[in-house]
């Protein structure tokens, strides 16, 4: 473990955690507020920022958007004291509910920005699921240009962008009555691809998820793994 000095007043504990089930409906901002209470309750030896309004420092990688579950979220926490990662993990988990739990905790000096790719599972439930539909979904995402309209302010014209360069891998298959898609998407801060855009592309290309009856057609997204630029596991 690194020696704490005035130049280096803290160590960085990295947490890998899950956020699943109903917690997919919690925004990133709400997650941050929730986490700050959790780390206080867990009585971790927190490092506080200097200044008038000291706060513990939490840094998150690639914020999740509402509606996406995850089993590989990362967060860095600054501590001023030696505490075993196992101990930290146990204390944190005792202060969280089942739907959010730390999977792994370790000290690190690597940057969170080394995280470049994220893989997702997208499950689409639809009445007319078939092998053909799965194939056409895969084809639609493997063409040279996958165009989607970006979100825009109501008064702006939504720009159309090609998301294909941000898709590293994609595959689709039929699993029961569900179209299952595995996708590896860019997580680079400057070129982050929200998996919702993949769903959006499929919606316009294959005409799925257009039934207004929400009980007939629906989908779920799960973030499953994280990689560095060379596709080695990020941790």
């Amino acid at each position, binding site marked *: 473990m690194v020696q704490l000095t005035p130049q280096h007043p803290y160590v960085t504990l990295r947490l890998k955690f899950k956020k699943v089930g109903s917690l997919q*409906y919690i*925004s990133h901002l*709400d997650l941050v507020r929730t986490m700050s*209470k959790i780390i206080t309750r867990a009585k971790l030896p927190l490092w506080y920022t200097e200044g008038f309004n000291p706060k513990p420092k939490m840094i998150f990688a690639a914020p999740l958007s509402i509606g996406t579950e995850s089993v590989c979220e990362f967060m860095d926490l600054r501590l001023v004291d030696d505490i075993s990662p196992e101990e930290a993990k146990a204390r944190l988990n005792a202060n969280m509910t089942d739907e959010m739990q730390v999977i792994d905790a370790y000290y690190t000096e690597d940057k969170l920005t080394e995280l470049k790719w994220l893989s997702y599972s997208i499950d689409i439930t639809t009445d007319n699921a078939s092998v053909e539909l799965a194939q056409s979904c895969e084809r639609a995402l493997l063409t040279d240009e996958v165009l989607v309209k970006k979100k825009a302010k109501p008064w702006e014209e939504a720009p159309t962008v090609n998301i294909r360069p941000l898709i590293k891998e994609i595959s689709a298959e039929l699993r029961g009555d569900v179209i299952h898609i595995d996708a590896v998407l860019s997580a680079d801060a400057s070129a982050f691809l929200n998996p919702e855009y993949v769903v959006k592309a499929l919606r316009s290309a294959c005409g799925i998820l257009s039934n207004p009856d929400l*009980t007939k057609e629906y989908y779920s997204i799960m973030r499953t793994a994280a990689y560095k630029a060379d596709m080695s596991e990020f941790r």
Partner: protein
Amino acid sequence: MSHNPETKNISSVLKAVNKPGRYIGGEYNRVMKNKDEVKCRFAFCFPDTYEIGMSNLGVRILYDVLNRDKDIWCERVYAPWEDMKAKMEEYDIPLSAVESGDPLSAFDLVAFSLQYELCYTTALQMLKLAGFPLRSKDRGEDVPIIVGGGPCVFNSEPVADFFDLMNIGEGEEVLLEICHLYNEMKDNGTYTRAAFLRAASHIEGVYIPSLYDVSYNEDGTIKEYRPLYDDVPTKIKKRIVEDLDKAPYPDKLIMPYVETVHDRIVLEVYRGCIRGCRFCQAGMVYRPIREKSPETLCKNAKCLYENTGYDEISLISLSISDYSELRELTDGLLSWTDNAHVSLSLPSLRIDSFSEELMKKVSSVRTGGLTFAPEAGTQRLRDVINKNVCEEDLMRAVGIAFRGGKSSVKLYFMNGLPTETLEDIEGIADLAGKVVKEYYKMPKQDRPRGVSVTISVACFVPKPFTPFQWEKQDSFEELIKKQEHLKGCITDKKIRYTYHDAKVSFVEAVLARGDRRLSDAIELLVNEGAMFDAWDEYFDYDKWMSAFERTGVDTAFYTTRGFGLDEILPWDMIDCGVTKEFLLRERKKAYEGKTTPSCAEHCNGCGANKLGGKNRWCN
């Protein structure tokens, strides 16, 4: 409202609504029990959004009290926002409790916290979403007992037909007694709705509206409230908790994932109020004054901090600076909060208690907004309403604040108070002008910014159980005229003027002072979709007026008419401790412009001491 697997595909519904986080439950510190191991399932409903309901201290306390009993499982229910409500109706999703996700029909008792009159439509809309008949008399044996509580039930008559049981006063003990009676009758096989309600009417602090017959005189005033049976009490005495130091207080709080209105630790310092402002209902109905000791409060605070991780503690009560051991309490808390990076906040500071010391010690006083409530513009009118502060107090307080670096202040007033004249209105503008001048008394180098004074003016609503309960409310036209007059008196750009919508106050007055003859109008509104009337964007004055008109309600009868001193009032069957004689005495003094000292100076014999309790001031 989502965990029930039987509720099909609710997740796709959640993706289609705004702020889905408010519907998911699953919070840390919520209480989960096995529904097969409890005898009584209790749904605590808050007729407003999750964000507002989660912040309510009463609900937090009662949730804790009920769940301490192993035979009871108390869960929470909130009103769905409009978009969610539409989806629930479209997909036949019944209103359900946050903890279990079970529909309200699975519960034994369903209680509503009625905090403000304008929540009535939302409460009834929730009954509809649960699939229950609106009126008590139409409910069958399979429908839970519908309970009402909170400040509104000091006159619950406008909604009396919709509730089976009203809890008058503090609920900590009564609700447990109600549940125990319910369990007992279920166990020994004597339970029917009728038998239960009749037996419950014998519990002190319980009012069963259906057990009373109301008759009216020809002029529309009430002739008589008659219990249907001899064993049903003619007067229902409010319940209080005797000793707050011994009463349970939550040692943990449910931690919402989404941001709520008061997302922090709340310490209730005392109940009641020593002041006796003559327009204030809370100041009367929460008497007698019972304080908690600083030791208990410090213990509560530490424990809540460890179990929540909140970084803010808010001390609440009607007028925090009247707490007799405020210094001991703040010193006790500050001894550890600074190191733990926890800040203290004190709302509701009285003008005459604002001090340099508080400004130094308490961060919310140091950094927060500065608000004072002189309530009236002239000393004459302040004496009428018994707001015992004077201009010098205000100037001293703002002076301290300005010298401490503040440059903006908000002042609260009321329009339409009894005996108010245009001169009193002008006094409001005057007072604001003097506050501006006070700022410019400081040397130039001490005022880096310009000063800003906001005056916020509400409309007077004569409330039950106040010395002004008989008063008439100004007509809508009069209120508008006064608001306009004040607008004309303000010429200084440094003074900002905001005022309440007189239409809202008018409907509030009808509901606060109404009787059972309002129920048709309320039912009609609810059937036509009214909800969230406490929200400006949903309050529709024309709809209210139309509903009153179509059901034959003369609104003037409840508002501009004023009530006769010898008239039977809709809330006369409730005994809130404070006697009618005291209220009449206070009313007389108001018209004589005489003030009444606070209970800390001497007891004024309001009658609340007869309720007992470990009182601070009463003799």
